[in-house]
């Protein structure tokens, strides 16, 4: 123990330094290690979370982009389809209209022809009856007497027939 004496070691000083160390230990543990380790852990957790979130966001963004692309393509296809259909329908409608117009025109022409025919027929008849009257009158003048009804009719028919 002489050696220790010459180094100035005293139990009370040893104890004092040991107490000092423990005081420091307690203070640093409470005010330095615990808060710092806690904040380090927290930060690590937060970074991990953020990175995971970033990954997810990126994935989702990619998916959204893909979706949009798909939707755009779909829309383009739909539009094309619609246009084609519209063109087709328009063609059909135009054709139908054409047909109808042609038919209408035909009908109108037919009608007018019929009415013309009718008119002509009527005219014809009129002319004929007038002509017959004339013929009868002429004959009466030539013959100088009134013809019997029966003869009159026969002759007129005959001559009209000859005229055509």
């Amino acid at each position, binding site marked *: 123990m002489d050696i220790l004496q*010459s180094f100035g070691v005293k139990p009370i*000083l040893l104890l004092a*330094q040991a107490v000092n160390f423990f005081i420091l230990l307690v203070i640093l543990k409470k005010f330095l290690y615990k808060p710092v380790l806690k904040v380090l852990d927290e930060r690590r957790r937060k970074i991990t979370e953020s990175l995971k979130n970033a990954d997810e966001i990126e994935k989702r963004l990619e998916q959204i982009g893909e979706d949009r692309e798909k939707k755009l393509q779909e829309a383009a296809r739909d539009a094309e389809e619609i246009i084609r259909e519209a063109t087709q329908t328009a063609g059909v409608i135009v054709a139908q209209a054409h047909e109808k117009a042609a038919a209408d025109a035909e009908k109108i022409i037919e009608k007018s022809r019929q009415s013309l025919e009718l008119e002509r027929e009527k005219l014809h008849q009129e002319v004929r009856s007038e002509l017959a009257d004339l013929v009868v009158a002429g004959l009466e003048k030539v013959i100088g007497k009134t013809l019997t009804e029966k003869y009159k009719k026969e002759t007129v028919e005959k001559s009209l027939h000859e005229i055509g």
Partner: protein
Amino acid sequence: MEIAIAAETITHIGPLPLTNTLLLSWIVIILLSVVAFIVSRQIKMIPNRLQNIFELIIEVSYGLTEDIAGFRAKVFFPFIMTFFLFIITGNWLGLLPGFGTIGFWEGSGSKATFVPLLRSIDSDLNTTLALALISAIATHFFAIKYLGLGSYLKRWVSRNPIYMFVGILEIVSEFTKIISLSFRLFGNIFAGEVVLATIAGIFAFVVPLPFYFLEIVVGFVQAAVFMMLTLTFMAMLSEKHSGSE
């Protein structure tokens, strides 16, 4: 210039002789506590510079402790880290100007001795021995805590003559651990003080600078060595021992 091996006593507080190294220990404690308090007061997720420094120190040390001690890191860490901070702060403070030079003369005439007011904490065997004892006691306490008393005793005592002999060697080595821990730290720092004082005695300007640089490195290395050795001792002794089963 003569440097006493024993720390000089400044005054007495009751039965406690207030040595210059004890005074510096108090200063170290106050300094570290104030810094710790400041850090804990303004601790944030986005750290400022001070918080950054301590985060760096603590993260590296905690990683080291976890690598060596595994799941026991949480329990060992406060001891390891406090050893390091206490020792390195004491060592580096001891290099500041004024240490060992500001003081007073005690006694009179040719018997008068110079008593510096401040002296590096680890240039006093009291401090280093206290630290080594705490390290040893804590190591054994943790060993009992993690192994249980029976399994802990098996390391030292065995009926098998070979293991009994090994056990005795182990017991001796435990004491040498204390001695080597305390004298290594004390010797290095004390020798550093002597070197600095001697060089400054030869020529006080510029020449001591390389030695100051050396002492800064030594102060860090010794703190790291003390911390690492304590950590490995703690991890080794509280590990399940397969040799003596």
